[in-house]
């Protein structure tokens, strides 16, 4: 913000906008970072920001309490909350760990029941909470649940029944107890406000007639993501009645169609001129895929990560998507498929290659270093990569970043832990060295393969903009982690598993943790005493240790450290020890 300095105006008469004007101006600032900066200018601006803030993003639900949030932002309308540590996605966090949303709902209901939007990630949400939400917030209109657990389709039913103004219902990758598809039928017959409906990860069938009537009523529907059990016939009818869709998730794509049915489906896709995002496609056959070609000309994001396409199928599809900027696929497409990506997607900015068989130990290589190099050669704008593979070389990674120096997110997972460069048998240190030296804008990095402390030395020395680092089975000594803690001053999130870092490494970050969101260390060499020492010295950190059954009393099996203004949490289960400075 550029403030022109006032000249020769006495302090007492210095510019003082009426609060209402200041608040009005501030509402034009949307970004939380800008808002936070504004609130630090002076008390008046802090107050104006507090009264005018409508959206709050809380990256760690335990960093603050709902009471503090409600007190500071009395007119909040939209809340985004993230709960469990990210490694809970990989089963490393016990089920009863916490992050229950209910206490938040109770506080908001009493203080500011004008809540309209709730977006939760990795939180525990029960059906009771969903019912409470549906009944206590009359203006509620947008619910997004990503990687949450604890609820069932009954909870969705209460939301559908009672939220009269719902515009968004987005249910993704949750541990949901899927009892029936009845919830969809709970939307009232005159309900027509829906703009976003995503039930792609539910298994049970919904009533197709109910769905079709709902879609044709909701003229503002922009995003529709069907689940796997949705048939192609149903899809055909939906497309015909909702050509205004911008994002579409199709259901299973394996049904055998007669030539007529195929032509009709293709024709229906032709109506959808506004599609920018396509996903779904379970069990897609090559023939059926060709039905979507007419809708692909404006496509910017294609998510094929739920169907094991072969290279040729991908190669036939991509030429129809000239504007593609984001692509998610399974490694079944192979290096040949990735060559097709390089050849057909000059505007590509993001690629994610997921493993079809993550637990497969066969030596059959599906994507290798050649694939990633081929993509980098054809897609100079690439800045986001997530790549699961079973072999990699230092040279290939160096080539990739030479071709694409603008990486902001570089996540490489060589699936066999501690695997060296397969041509030279050397550690993969130089690969990640090349990444951090070349990609000055790098914000997120995930490393893998055989790695010594040298990798961390490179990271600490060069990755000055790094905000998130994920490490597994790497490093030789405490020095590794120390390099990172000393060098990466912008680091916000650090996740470490199975590395030889002990108390000295943990304590080397003493001064850093308060400016980070969180630290995770599991299966390292940290002890309970080390954690206690950290907690003693840093009162504004919560230091938590998750104990595993049968482990030594002194071992800190899993450590989770995060800054907080709310003090130690009181809802930790018995297996989680919380240490504080008290």
């Amino acid at each position, binding site marked *: 913000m550029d403030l022109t300095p006032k000249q020769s105006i006495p302090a007492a008469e210095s510019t003082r906008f009426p609060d209402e004007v200041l608040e009005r101006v501030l509402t034009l600032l949307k970004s939380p970072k800008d808002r936070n900066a504004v609130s630090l200018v002076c008390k008046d601006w802090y107050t104006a920001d507090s009264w005018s803030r409508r959206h709050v993003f809380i990256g760690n639900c335990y960093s603050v309490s709902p009471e503090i949030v409600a007190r500071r932002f009395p007119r909040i309308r939209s809340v985004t909350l993230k709960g469990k540590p990210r490694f809970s996605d990989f089963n490393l966090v016990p089920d009863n760990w916490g992050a229950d949303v209910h206490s938040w709902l109770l506080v908001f209901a009493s203080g500011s029941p004008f809540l309209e939007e709730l977006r939760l990630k990795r939180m525990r949400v029960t059906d009771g909470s969903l019912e409470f939400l549906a009944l206590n917030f009359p203006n509620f209109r947008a619910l997004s649940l990503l990687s949450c657990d604890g609820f069932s389709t009954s909870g969705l039913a209460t939301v559908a029944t009672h939220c009269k103004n719902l515009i968004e219902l987005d249910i993704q990758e949750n*541990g949901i107890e899927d009892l029936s598809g009845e919830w969809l039928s709970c939307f009232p017959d005159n309900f027509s406000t829906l703009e976003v409906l995503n039930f792609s990860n539910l*298994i*049970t069938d919904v009533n197709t007639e109910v769905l079709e009537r709902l879609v044709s009523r909701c003229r503002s529907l922009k995003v529709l993501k069907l689940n796997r059990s949705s048939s192609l016939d149903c899809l055909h009818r939906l497309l015909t009645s909702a050509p205004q869709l911008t994002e579409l998730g199709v259901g299973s794509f394996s049904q055998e169609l007669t030539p007529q049915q195929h032509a009709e489906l293709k024709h229906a896709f032709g109506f959808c001129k506004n599609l920018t995002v396509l996903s779904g496609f379970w069990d897609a056959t090559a023939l059926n895929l060709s039905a979507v070609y007419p809708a692909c000309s404006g496509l910017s994001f294609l998510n094929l990560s*739920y169907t*094991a396409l072969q290279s040729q199928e991908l190669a036939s599809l991509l030429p129809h998507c000239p504007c593609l900027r984001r692509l998610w696929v399974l490694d079944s497409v192979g290096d040949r498929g990735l060559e097709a990506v390089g050849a057909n997607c000059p505007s590509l900015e993001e690629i994610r290659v997921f493993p*079809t068989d993550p637990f497969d*130990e066969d030596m059959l290589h599906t994507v290798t270093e050649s694939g990633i190099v081929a993509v980098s050669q054809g897609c100079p704008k690439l800045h986001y990569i997530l790549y699961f593979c079973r072999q990699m070389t230092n040279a290939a990674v160096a080539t990739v970043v030479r071709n694409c120096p603008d990486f902001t997110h570089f996540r490489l*997972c060589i699936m066999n832990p501690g695997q060296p460069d397969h041509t030279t048998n050397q550690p993969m240190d130089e690969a990640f060295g090349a990444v951090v030296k070349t990609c000055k804008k790098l914000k997120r990095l995930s490393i893998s393969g055989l790695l010594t402390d040298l990798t961390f030395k490179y990271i600490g020395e060069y990755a000055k903009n790094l905000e998130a680092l994920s490490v597994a089975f790497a490093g030789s000594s405490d020095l590794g982690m120390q390099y990172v803690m000393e060098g990466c001053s912008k680091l916000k999130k650090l996740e470490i598993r199975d590395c030889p870092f002990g108390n000295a490494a943990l304590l080397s970050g003493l001064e850093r943790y308060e400016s980070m969101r969180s630290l995770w260390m599991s299966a390292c060499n940290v002890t309970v005493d080390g954690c206690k020492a950290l907690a003693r010295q840093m009162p504004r950190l919560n230091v938590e240790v998750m104990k595993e059954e049968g482990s030594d009393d002194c071992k800190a099996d899993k450590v989770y450290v995060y800054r907080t203004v709310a003090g130690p949490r009181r809802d930790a289960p018995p297996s989680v020890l919380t240490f504080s400075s008290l």
Partner: protein
Amino acid sequence: DDRLPLPPVDLKTLPLLQWAAGEENDDNCSVVLNNRIEAEEEGDSDGGDGIVGWPPINFRRNKKQRNQMMVVNRPSSCSGECGAAGPTPSMYVKVTMDGVGIGRKVDLALHDSFSSLRRQLFAMFGLPEENPWDGGAGEYQLTYQDPEGDWLLADDISWRSFIGSVQRLRLMRSSSSGSS
């Protein structure tokens, strides 16, 4: 006769496995699958070599990719009564046999019982028909990997449950010293 009264048994009538896209699927099966997701204990999603939570794939994503609807989409020996022509999506899973370097792939969609699967596997790996393998007594045991990465014996499970959870197969050599 002083027999104690039997405890009340909650008998649930399971819906028949229907073959028809769009009809109500076997809720019980999907509930079982999802309850397994719910009750998933720490450490279940480990890879073949036993590393918990590795590779770092969201365990819910991995489950969703495979086989969850395959149970519904199987004709499952309805022998012509299914009426409407329906797709028979293939269901290839990898098969390895202990002692054999190269793995094979078998399409489970072509089978509706363990005995027919056994016949094909024997033919594939060149085992003589008489090789006694039926759940423990023989030289090789059929094991399968479920969505959580655990290896289980394919002997006391129904074909339907097997199809719903099998990710890959392994013909495991039984312990040579005595029967297990």
